[in-house]
Protein backbone atom coordinates (compact mmCIF):
# COMPACT_ATOMS: atom_id res chain seq x y z
CA UNK A 1 0.00 0.00 0.00
CA UNK A 2 1.15 3.50 -0.85
CA UNK A 3 2.04 5.33 2.41
CA UNK A 4 -0.05 8.29 1.27
CA UNK A 5 -3.17 6.10 1.06
CA UNK A 6 -2.63 4.97 4.62
CA UNK A 7 -2.03 8.52 5.85
CA UNK A 8 -5.11 9.80 4.01
CA UNK A 9 -7.17 7.06 5.63
CA UNK A 10 -5.87 8.10 9.07
CA UNK A 11 -6.51 11.79 8.36
CA UNK A 12 -10.11 11.07 7.32
CA UNK A 13 -10.71 8.75 10.28
CA UNK A 14 -9.39 11.37 12.72
CA UNK A 15 -12.31 13.64 11.75
CA UNK A 16 -14.96 11.17 12.88
CA UNK A 17 -16.98 12.26 15.92
CA UNK A 18 -15.63 9.51 18.17
CA UNK A 19 -12.41 7.51 18.47
CA UNK A 20 -14.34 4.26 18.15
CA UNK A 21 -15.83 5.40 14.85
CA UNK A 22 -12.35 6.38 13.67
CA UNK A 23 -11.04 2.89 14.44
CA UNK A 24 -14.04 1.30 12.69
CA UNK A 25 -13.40 3.45 9.62
CA UNK A 26 -9.77 2.36 9.46
CA UNK A 27 -10.75 -1.30 9.69
CA UNK A 28 -13.38 -0.86 6.99
CA UNK A 29 -11.10 0.97 4.57
CA UNK A 30 -7.75 -0.75 5.00
CA UNK A 31 -6.51 -4.31 4.58
CA UNK A 32 -6.04 -5.97 7.95
CA UNK A 33 -2.25 -6.08 7.53
CA UNK A 34 -2.25 -2.26 7.84
CA UNK A 35 -4.54 -1.97 10.84
CA UNK A 36 -1.77 -1.90 13.42
CA UNK A 37 0.30 0.80 11.76
CA UNK A 38 -2.83 2.80 11.00
CA UNK A 39 -3.96 2.58 14.63
CA UNK A 40 -0.49 3.69 15.72
CA UNK A 41 -0.66 6.65 13.32
CA UNK A 42 -4.22 7.74 14.11
CA UNK A 43 -3.52 9.32 17.55
CA UNK A 44 -1.16 11.90 16.01
CA UNK A 45 -3.88 13.06 13.59
CA UNK A 46 -6.52 13.05 16.30
CA UNK A 47 -4.56 15.69 18.27
CA UNK A 48 -5.35 18.34 15.64
CA UNK A 49 -8.98 17.23 15.43
CA UNK A 50 -9.48 17.53 19.19
CA UNK A 51 -7.86 20.95 19.21
CA UNK A 52 -10.22 22.09 16.43
CA UNK A 53 -13.33 21.25 18.47
CA UNK A 54 -15.15 24.41 19.53
CA UNK A 55 -15.37 24.03 23.29
CA UNK A 56 -13.50 22.42 26.16
CA UNK A 57 -16.61 20.35 26.85
CA UNK A 58 -16.53 18.94 23.30
CA UNK A 59 -12.84 18.17 23.66
CA UNK A 60 -13.46 16.38 26.96
CA UNK A 61 -16.38 14.49 25.44
CA UNK A 62 -14.23 13.31 22.54
CA UNK A 63 -11.47 12.16 24.89
CA UNK A 64 -14.03 10.06 26.74
CA UNK A 65 -14.75 8.13 23.53
CA UNK A 66 -11.23 6.64 23.56
CA UNK A 67 -11.66 3.05 24.78
CA UNK A 68 -9.78 2.03 27.92
CA UNK A 69 -8.26 -0.98 26.19
CA UNK A 70 -7.14 0.78 23.05
CA UNK A 71 -4.25 -0.17 20.74
CA UNK A 72 -1.59 1.15 21.11
CA UNK A 73 -2.03 1.27 24.87
CA UNK A 74 -0.64 4.80 25.21
CA UNK A 75 -2.94 6.31 22.55
CA UNK A 76 -5.00 8.35 25.01
CA UNK A 77 -2.04 9.82 26.89
CA UNK A 78 -0.28 10.53 23.59
CA UNK A 79 -3.32 12.48 22.36
CA UNK A 80 -3.54 14.38 25.65
CA UNK A 81 0.12 15.39 25.42
CA UNK A 82 -0.14 16.33 21.75
CA UNK A 83 -3.21 18.49 22.32
CA UNK A 84 -1.54 20.19 25.29
CA UNK A 85 1.50 21.12 23.21
CA UNK A 86 -0.52 22.29 20.19
CA UNK A 87 -2.75 24.35 22.47
CA UNK A 88 0.27 25.92 24.18
CA UNK A 89 1.70 26.83 20.78
CA UNK A 90 -1.56 28.51 19.82
CA UNK A 91 -1.48 30.61 22.99
CA UNK A 92 1.99 32.00 22.21
Amino acid sequence: MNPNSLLNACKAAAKKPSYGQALDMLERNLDSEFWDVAKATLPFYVCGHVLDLSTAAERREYMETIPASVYPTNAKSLIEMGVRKLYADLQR
Partner: protein
Amino acid sequence: MQTFRDDLRRGEAVEKDFLDRLLVSFKHATKSVGKNSRYDILIPELDAKVEVKFDPMSRETGNIVVEYFHNQPSGLHTTESDHWLFYDGVDEYWLTLTDLIGICASQSPTRIHGRGDRHPKWVYLVPIEVIRKNARQ
Protein backbone atom coordinates in the same frame (compact mmCIF):
# COMPACT_ATOMS: atom_id res chain seq x y z
CA MET B 1 31.56 3.04 5.00
CA GLN B 2 29.72 3.15 8.33
CA THR B 3 27.94 -0.07 9.25
CA PHE B 4 24.93 -0.62 11.46
CA ARG B 5 27.32 -1.95 14.13
CA ASP B 6 29.40 1.25 13.91
CA ASP B 7 26.26 3.36 14.34
CA LEU B 8 25.29 1.32 17.38
CA ARG B 9 28.74 1.65 18.92
CA ARG B 10 28.80 5.41 18.40
CA GLY B 11 25.31 5.74 19.85
CA GLU B 12 26.35 3.81 22.95
CA ALA B 13 29.47 5.97 23.31
CA VAL B 14 27.31 9.10 23.19
CA GLU B 15 25.04 7.69 25.93
CA LYS B 16 28.08 6.82 28.05
CA ASP B 17 29.56 10.29 27.58
CA PHE B 18 26.28 11.92 28.51
CA LEU B 19 25.95 9.71 31.59
CA ASP B 20 29.49 10.67 32.70
CA ARG B 21 28.50 14.34 32.50
CA LEU B 22 25.32 13.70 34.47
CA LEU B 23 27.18 11.80 37.18
CA VAL B 24 28.99 15.00 38.14
CA SER B 25 25.69 16.37 39.49
CA PHE B 26 23.57 13.24 39.96
CA LYS B 27 25.59 10.44 41.46
CA HIS B 28 22.78 7.87 41.20
CA ALA B 29 22.19 8.33 37.47
CA THR B 30 22.39 5.02 35.60
CA LYS B 31 22.24 3.72 32.07
CA SER B 32 19.48 1.26 31.22
CA VAL B 33 20.30 -2.38 30.71
CA GLY B 34 18.95 -4.51 27.85
CA LYS B 35 18.03 -3.64 24.30
CA ASN B 36 14.28 -3.51 25.02
CA SER B 37 14.60 -0.82 27.64
CA ARG B 38 12.14 2.04 27.26
CA TYR B 39 14.60 4.69 28.36
CA ASP B 40 18.37 5.18 28.10
CA ILE B 41 19.26 6.95 31.33
CA LEU B 42 17.53 7.10 34.69
CA ILE B 43 18.13 10.04 37.03
CA PRO B 44 16.58 8.97 40.37
CA GLU B 45 17.36 12.33 42.00
CA LEU B 46 15.02 14.04 39.51
CA ASP B 47 12.69 11.08 39.04
CA ALA B 48 13.44 11.51 35.33
CA LYS B 49 14.11 9.14 32.45
CA VAL B 50 15.99 10.30 29.40
CA GLU B 51 16.02 8.97 25.85
CA VAL B 52 19.30 9.78 24.09
CA LYS B 53 19.15 9.94 20.31
CA PHE B 54 22.37 10.26 18.38
CA ASP B 55 21.51 11.35 14.84
CA PRO B 56 24.61 12.59 13.00
CA MET B 57 22.84 12.17 9.64
CA SER B 58 20.55 15.03 10.61
CA ARG B 59 23.39 17.44 9.85
CA GLU B 60 23.20 16.30 6.22
CA THR B 61 19.47 15.71 5.87
CA GLY B 62 18.27 18.63 8.01
CA ASN B 63 15.82 16.30 9.76
CA ILE B 64 15.77 14.43 13.05
CA VAL B 65 14.22 10.95 12.85
CA VAL B 66 11.54 10.17 15.45
CA GLU B 67 10.19 6.62 15.26
CA TYR B 68 6.74 5.44 16.33
CA PHE B 69 6.14 2.08 14.62
CA HIS B 70 8.51 -0.71 13.69
CA ASN B 71 6.44 -3.79 12.96
CA GLN B 72 4.75 -2.90 16.28
CA PRO B 73 4.34 0.29 18.30
CA SER B 74 7.79 1.64 19.13
CA GLY B 75 9.61 4.87 19.93
CA LEU B 76 7.03 7.52 20.85
CA HIS B 77 4.45 4.83 21.61
CA THR B 78 6.54 2.75 23.97
CA THR B 79 8.94 5.20 25.58
CA GLU B 80 8.95 5.76 29.33
CA SER B 81 11.26 8.76 28.93
CA ASP B 82 9.82 12.13 29.82
CA HIS B 83 12.87 13.89 28.38
CA TRP B 84 14.53 13.36 25.02
CA LEU B 85 18.03 14.45 24.12
CA PHE B 86 18.91 14.72 20.44
CA TYR B 87 22.58 15.00 19.60
CA ASP B 88 23.73 15.53 16.02
CA GLY B 89 27.44 15.25 16.74
CA VAL B 90 27.82 18.98 17.36
CA ASP B 91 24.70 20.40 18.96
CA GLU B 92 22.35 18.87 21.51
CA TYR B 93 18.67 19.59 21.96
CA TRP B 94 16.50 18.79 24.97
CA LEU B 95 12.78 18.28 24.51
CA THR B 96 10.03 17.01 26.75
CA LEU B 97 7.98 14.07 25.50
CA THR B 98 4.91 16.35 25.41
CA ASP B 99 6.69 18.82 23.16
CA LEU B 100 7.96 16.08 20.89
CA ILE B 101 4.54 14.48 20.46
CA GLY B 102 2.96 17.87 19.73
CA ILE B 103 5.62 18.60 17.14
CA CYS B 104 5.03 15.25 15.43
CA ALA B 105 1.27 15.78 15.54
CA SER B 106 1.72 18.80 13.30
CA GLN B 107 3.84 16.93 10.73
CA SER B 108 3.23 14.05 8.31
CA PRO B 109 4.85 10.70 9.03
CA THR B 110 6.77 8.69 6.48
CA ARG B 111 7.99 5.14 5.98
CA ILE B 112 11.72 4.40 5.83
CA HIS B 113 13.81 1.26 5.63
CA GLY B 114 16.77 1.63 7.97
CA ARG B 115 20.15 -0.04 7.52
CA GLY B 116 20.09 -3.44 9.21
CA ASP B 117 16.32 -3.38 9.67
CA ARG B 118 14.16 -6.31 8.62
CA HIS B 119 10.94 -4.30 8.64
CA PRO B 120 10.26 -0.74 7.52
CA LYS B 121 9.86 1.90 10.20
CA TRP B 122 7.23 4.58 10.41
CA VAL B 123 8.81 7.82 11.53
CA TYR B 124 8.48 11.55 11.66
CA LEU B 125 11.27 13.47 9.94
CA VAL B 126 11.25 16.61 12.04
CA PRO B 127 13.18 19.57 10.58
CA ILE B 128 16.10 20.44 12.83
CA GLU B 129 14.90 24.05 12.90
CA VAL B 130 11.64 22.93 14.50
CA ILE B 131 13.58 20.89 17.06
CA ARG B 132 15.85 23.86 17.78
CA LYS B 133 12.91 26.25 18.16
CA ASN B 134 11.20 23.96 20.68
CA ALA B 135 14.29 22.83 22.58
CA ARG B 136 14.60 23.63 26.28
CA GLN B 137 17.69 25.44 27.49
